[in-house]
């Protein structure tokens, strides 16, 4: 990977990757502009955040980007929506066997200070810190999206490093959405009400989302928004979340960034999972897998096989 970035660097303005953050558990974005920056690049279970979120704002520059499977789907979806120019992007793909969720890791191992090393060995994660060595089953501490990841390899890449991995067999236990669906509608409503009481409308979910591309033209923060007021209460927060969901219908690449970025730990992935399931069921396609396919909600068929006629 480092070799191919070094070779491509002279023709690029910058390459986006990850470097180690303030301790071994945290990776932070790395902007590679010079050959010596390449040495700081790391790849591994701590390279969580999707760097694709940066790309639309870098339009016009020639940019390289290091991508996991889910990140590459975001790039492909942006290409599909003509928000990026394929000629300006160089993809450095690799096969990812899962990333760590710091929230889940803290639940299993407790607070972890000044971690010195994080290693993944087969199905376990070993964390070393001055307090000693602790380990956990990887499935218990990985990001929920990794449990049944069908796209471990970059779906599109100009350079691919390392072996291509097999998709994970779907987890046998029920998905979070399936468990949620066991609740009645009233319970679900009460659930969201309770969650939305905690939503602080910080928009971290939106800012982390690689498919949220309106940026400072976002409907939710417009000075004279007709859809949400600036008032902070559960119904306005829920309205904001549903704007996000509807604007991502058929576009969400299930990268889980919204849920990861949420400081209040609100399970936003449930809403996304439903929208993804619905659009797949209706339009038989997955976002971010084919850069040429038309967008399902910007096209139609005169006879929809999947939609019951309402005459």
């Amino acid at each position: 990977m480092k070799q191919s970035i070094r070779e491509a660097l002279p023709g690029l303005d910058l390459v986006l990757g990850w470097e180690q953050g303030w301790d071994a558990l945290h990776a932070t974005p790395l902007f590679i502009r010079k050959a010596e920056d390449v040495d700081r690049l790391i790849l591994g279970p701590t390279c969580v955040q999707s760097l694709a979120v940066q790309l639309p704002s870098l339009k016009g520059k020639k940019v390289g980007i290091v991508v996991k499977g889910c990140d590459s789907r975001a790039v492909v979806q942006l290409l599909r929506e003509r928000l990026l120019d394929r000629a300006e992007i160089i993809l450095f793909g690799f096969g990812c066997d899962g990333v760590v969720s710091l929230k889940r890791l803290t639940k299993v191992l407790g607070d972890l200070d000044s971690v010195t090393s994080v290693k993944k060995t087969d199905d376990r994660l070993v964390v070393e810190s001055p307090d000693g060595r602790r380990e956990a089953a990887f499935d218990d501490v990985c990001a929920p999206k990794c449990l049944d990841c069908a796209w471990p390899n970059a779906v599109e890449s100009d350079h691919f490093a390392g072996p291509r991995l097999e998709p994970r067999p779907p987890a046998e236990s029920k998905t979070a959405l399936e468990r949620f669906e066991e609740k009645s509608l009233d319970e679900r409503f009460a659930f969201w009400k309770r969650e939305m009481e905690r939503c602080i409308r910080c928009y971290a979910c939106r800012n982390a989302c690689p498919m949220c591309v309106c940026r400072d033209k976002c409907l939710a923060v417009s000075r004279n928004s007709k859809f949400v007021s600036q008032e902070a209460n559960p119904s306005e927060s829920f309205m904001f979340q549903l704007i996000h969901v509807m604007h991502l219908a058929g576009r969400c690449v299930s990268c889980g960034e919204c849920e990861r970025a949420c400081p209040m730990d609100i399970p936003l992935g449930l809403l996304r999972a439903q929208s993804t399931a619905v659009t797949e069921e209706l339009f038989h396609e997955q976002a971010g897998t084919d850069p040429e396919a038309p967008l399902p909600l910007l096209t139609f068929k005169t006879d929809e096989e999947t939609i019951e006629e309402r005459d």
Partner: protein
Amino acid sequence: MPASPGVDSGNELRILGFLCNWCSYGGADSAGVARLEQPTDLRIIRTPCTGRIDPLFIVRALINGADGVLVSGCHPGDCHYVEGNFHARRRLETLKRILPVTGINPDRFMYTWVSASESGRWQEVVREFTARIHTLGPAPRMSDTLTETLAAEGLPMQATNGVK
């Protein structure tokens, strides 16, 4: 047909209808001209086309206290703008199927097609939809206090990270 619920019985609910100017609005108008009796719960908003309807209009209405939302436009193939209702069909169906995860009953939202000449069909649509919403009763509100919702759910009040 049972007597229509509504303003006379004092149990009127709030139902919002988004009607296409070219078909369903005309259909509702001719139903009125023909003096076909209809429930009074429906408040109509006239739109240029169902293709103009952002699914978020419906979400906003349901969150802001509508007990039901009805969208009605031209039959597919008959759109004044040729393809407006084809686009609308995909969006509205997507919304309808996303609603269950939010806990908002998807039965509170219906979309259908009624042409300008179908005044009888319009009467039927409004009567059936209104009856359905009356069976469901008033919609739960996010703006109700949390305590009320938890009580309805039979759950104790929980600490919510210091937020009210």
